[in-house]
């Protein structure tokens, strides 16, 4: 019988939050992101175009929230899982307000869930993190939920 990986102690950590991380949004970050995706949409890059468009200036594309630099501080887990490999299982993101250069976002991560599945190579443990981004006006600008697969 395989031993239990997800103990009561691990389960008790569900709900733990990270320290808030503060991220200043710069125009260069947005441009670099759009270039990396090869997304030529002028709303993300062309100041002159964007000024006369819907948002009155450059905004970050939605995918910007998916990046590591936007993920903030890690939740400090009081446990370690017996795996060395990790895969990004995916996630879901809700975009509530546009973000612009000059915005100062505060990111908080919350350990939301943990569960295990039998994979092709043995046990896999799925860890779900919920992320909330707020701007300098304390408005929630986006929410995310992402899954890391440990195996």
């Amino acid at each position, binding site marked *: 019988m395989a031993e239990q990986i997800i103990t009561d102690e691990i389960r008790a950590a569900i709900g733990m939050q990270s320290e808030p991380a503060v991220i200043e949004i710069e125009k260069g*970050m947005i441009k670099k992101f759009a270039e*990396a995706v090869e997304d030529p949409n002028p709303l993300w890059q062309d100041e002159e175009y964007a000024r006369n468009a819907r948002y009155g200036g450059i905004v970050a*594309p939605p*995918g910007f929230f*998916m990046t*590591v*630099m936007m993920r903030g501080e890690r939740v400090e887990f009081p446990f370690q899982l017996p795996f060395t490999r990790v895969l990004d299982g*995916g996630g879901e993101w809700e975009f509530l307000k546009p973000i612009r250069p000059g915005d100062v976002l505060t990111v908080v991560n919350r350990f939301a869930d943990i569960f295990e599945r039998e994979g092709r190579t043995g046990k896999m443990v799925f860890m779900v993190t919920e992320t909330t981004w707020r701007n300098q006006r304390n408005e929630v600008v986006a929410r995310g939920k992402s899954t890391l697969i440990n195996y």
Partner: protein
Amino acid sequence: MAKQLYYEDVEEGMEIPPLVKNPTTQQLVKWAGASGDYYQIHYDKDFAQSTGLPGVIAHGRLKSSFLAQLMTDWIGEGGTLKKISVQHRGMDLAGEQMTCKGRVTRKYIENGEHLVECEIWTENPRGEKTAPGSAIVSLLSRGGKS
């Protein structure tokens, strides 16, 4: 800029114009720098192979970002991508063509918003869906913004 899409132009079952991507190792390095994800499986072939992978693979989040672009290209400037969900099911090797596709599954009006739900996915050259997901967008209506 693509032309503006209106709610009235959309029908359930309709396909979203595909977005073709060719993520080379160079693009993965650009993504690593822009996103902050420096995990070596995405640019160091020896390292990737030492972990049992066949070679350098594309970042899951890059694929999710391609899918976000699929949607923002389609909905036009007046549309809003409200929600996206992506599961990383399969790996895509650097240098392999990836096609982002989607299909409208539902259209409805809620709280005055003209919403469209789509299934979306990335597809490799063998026709396998490596990152399936879904998205919800809010579109402009010809009847005027509500």
